[in-house]
Each structure stands twice: as C-alpha cells, then as structure tokens.
C-alpha cells in the first residue's frame, strides 16, 4: 500500500458565492470537507485501482457504496457525503500494464467527473455536492503522483 500524499487545503479553498437573505456571502468549504491526504494503489485481490481520501479526525460514519458505472464504485459517508474511496475496475477499462499509466488519470478523472455529476444531482436532495467536486479537483491535481503508483 502506498504512502499518503499530503494536500494543501489552500489550493482547494475556492469560495462559492451564495445569496443568503438578500446578501451575497463567500462560503468556503469546511476544513472537515477538504481531504488532508490522498493515496492510490493497485489492489491485486480485487484487481482494482483504489483511491482513498483521508479527512480530519477519525471516521465514525458508515459508508454507502454507489456503483456509478461498470468500472467505478464510489464509497461516500452516509451522513456527510464525503468521498472516502474510489474503486476503479481496471479490467473494465481494458487497461494493461503497458498503457495503464496513460489511462489511469484520464479514466479516473472521467469517472469522477461522471460521479460528481450524478451524485451532485442526488446530493441536491440530501447531501453536499461540494464534496464531490472537491474530490474531483484533488484527484486531477495529484493525478501524476497517483499514476506513479501503478502496478508492476
């Protein structure tokens, strides 16, 4: 299993302009919603590429699994909607050791983008779409570091 890669929260503290009671206010993400670290590794047993997000403090909430499409399973907190884990089925991606390095970032980001759209639709009812967009940006930002962790 690979080491955790630290995330600079300042890079992802983008304000969202919200009009609250007629006044425009900048709302930044909660420090609890920005992952403080990310890691990616290939799980030989599952034959999947796993991306994990670590947040402030210990996780107490249960996870729900959402199968976004044939090759992505997303595990998010039931209460907070924070993404904790992404499972990418490399067989479904038709990836092989030769071109995996090229495929992971694109496929992962594509998959996360798709997940963000789907889940943000769902989260408008009960959750928090910001979490999905944040995860997508973080994976995009650290994709090169994650790809270095490809299976040998």
């Amino acid at each position, binding site marked *: 299993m690979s080491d955790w890669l630290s995330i600079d929260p*300042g890079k992802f503290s983008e*304000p969202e302009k919200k009009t609250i*009671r007629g*006044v425009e206010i900048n709302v930044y993400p909660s420090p609890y919603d920005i992952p403080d670290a990310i890691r990616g590794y290939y799980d030989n047993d599952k034959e999947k590429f796993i991306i994990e997000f670590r947040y402030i403090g210990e996780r*107490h909430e249960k996870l729900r699994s959402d199968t976004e499409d044939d090759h992505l399973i997303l595990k998010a907190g039931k209460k907070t909607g924070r993404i904790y884990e992404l499972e990418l089925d490399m067989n479904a991606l038709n990836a092989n050791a030769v071109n995996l390095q090229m495929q992971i970032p694109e496929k992962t980001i594509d998959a996360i983008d798709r997940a963000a759209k789907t889940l943000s639709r769902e989260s408008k009812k009960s959750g928090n779409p910001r979490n999905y967009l944040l995860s997508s940006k973080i994976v995009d930002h650290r994709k090169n570091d994650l790809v270095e962790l490809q299976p040998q």
Partner: protein
Amino acid sequence: MKIHDKKIWLYHSLFVLGLFAVVLGTGVALLTNVNPDKAGFFQSFISRNANHAWYVVPILNALFVLCIAFRKLIGEPWVWKFIQKTLDVFQKELFHKNEPVFDHRITIFRRVSWASPFKTRRWKIWKKENYPFSGWLIPVARSHHVTQKNATVFLCPDDPKESEGIAGLAFVQKGTLVVDNLPDLSDNSTDEDIKKYSSETNIDPDFLIKRIADHKPNARSFYAFVIERKDEPWGVVVLDSRDPKGIKSPRGISRNIEILSKQLNFLLEKIQ
C-alpha cells in the same frame, strides 16, 4: 473568570458530591446490618433510621451515578484547559495583528438544544424563537483572559432561516464564512451603516442599536467555520477582529485552520 472555569468548578464539585453520596450510601447500608444492641453510642441512631435505609441507599446510589454522568457531560478539565491554550496559540497566527488581544479573538460556540434564559438573556420568551429550547450557539471557550463575561449567544434553531449571526450562518451552511470591511459602528453611525452591518452579519439591527447605546465594541471582520464531533456538526469557531481587514486571507490561514480543526476534533472526542 474564563468561560470554562465554571465547568471546571462544577466538575470538581460533582466529584465531591458523588464521593459524599457513595460514602454515605455505603455507611447507611453497612449500619443496617449492625445489631443496634451492640452499636453502643450509635444504638439510638440505628434504631431510629434503619427503616429508612431501603430508599435512602438507592437514592444515594442514583445521586452517585448522576454525578458521574454529569461529569462526563461537562468534560475533563484538562480538555478545556488544552482548548484554551490552543486558542491562545492560534490567536497569534490567524490575525495580522494580535494586540490588543481583546480586539482579535477566537471563540468556540457549542450548539445546544436548550439554554437557560439567564444565559441567552432573551427575556421576551413569548416570542417563538426565544424559547429556551429553540436551539442556541453558546460560547464555551475564548482566546486569552479578556471579554470572557457576557459573550453573545446566538439563536440556532432547526429552521435555518431563524439562525443568527455569522456563527449561525456558518453552522447552517456547514462551511466557512468570511466577512470583512464592516462599518465601524459608533454613536455617529448612520442608519445605512447599521443596516449594512446588520445584513452582512445576520444580526438584528435593534440588537446593534442597543450595543451602540451601551458603548460595546463591534468587530469589523469575521471568519467562522463549523466544527464537528464524530462526523456531526458540534459548534462553530468564530474569529473576530476590530480591524476591518484584521484576519489573514482564507488561503493564507487554511493550513493553520486545518491544524486547529484537527486539534479541536481530537479534544472534542473527549467530551460527551
């Protein structure tokens, strides 16, 4: 006296009360097994009170259990002292200037479902939103030793539209709110200034007018973020400064805020 000093005093008092209850309860239980004829000096006392032991002992045991439960609810004194020290340290890091300390403060508010009218000081309790059980954000710790008394309490009910202040908004939004460049409110302030301040900080204008009349200072910049305990919103940390740009930029302090949140998260796990 610091905000949490009362908690520490109560925590120790409950220990004394609990100890008293358990010692007395054990004593009474033991005395019921003593033959009064052989009790010498205590003979008349035992004969008179032995019949009451059947309910006195369970009551004292219940009191002991209650004392333990309340102590857990309050939290151990070292936790509150550690939180205080943490706020004092971060007060030096998060503001452009940190002197005088009463002009640049960090306050932790805890969201509670019930608060005494003596704490909320909303005497018009016939107004629906001022009920003691409306849901409130009460101050539980503040940086340094100043302005610890009479810290403002904000309404924070289940209905997000009724929440008050930047603290209430941050709690409802479950995010981080930044407001700065607020007007300097004084006796000479215009209605426009009061209206601007009121709308940007989500505070009732009447409340501001009273503060101005009482010559109480009003912060000119705020930074508030929600804090969690076991993945649930627990309260809000509010940075306020008398300087219109007194708080460092959100990006600049994001790492410090992350560390502060981590420390608070760890400490709050120790409180019920």
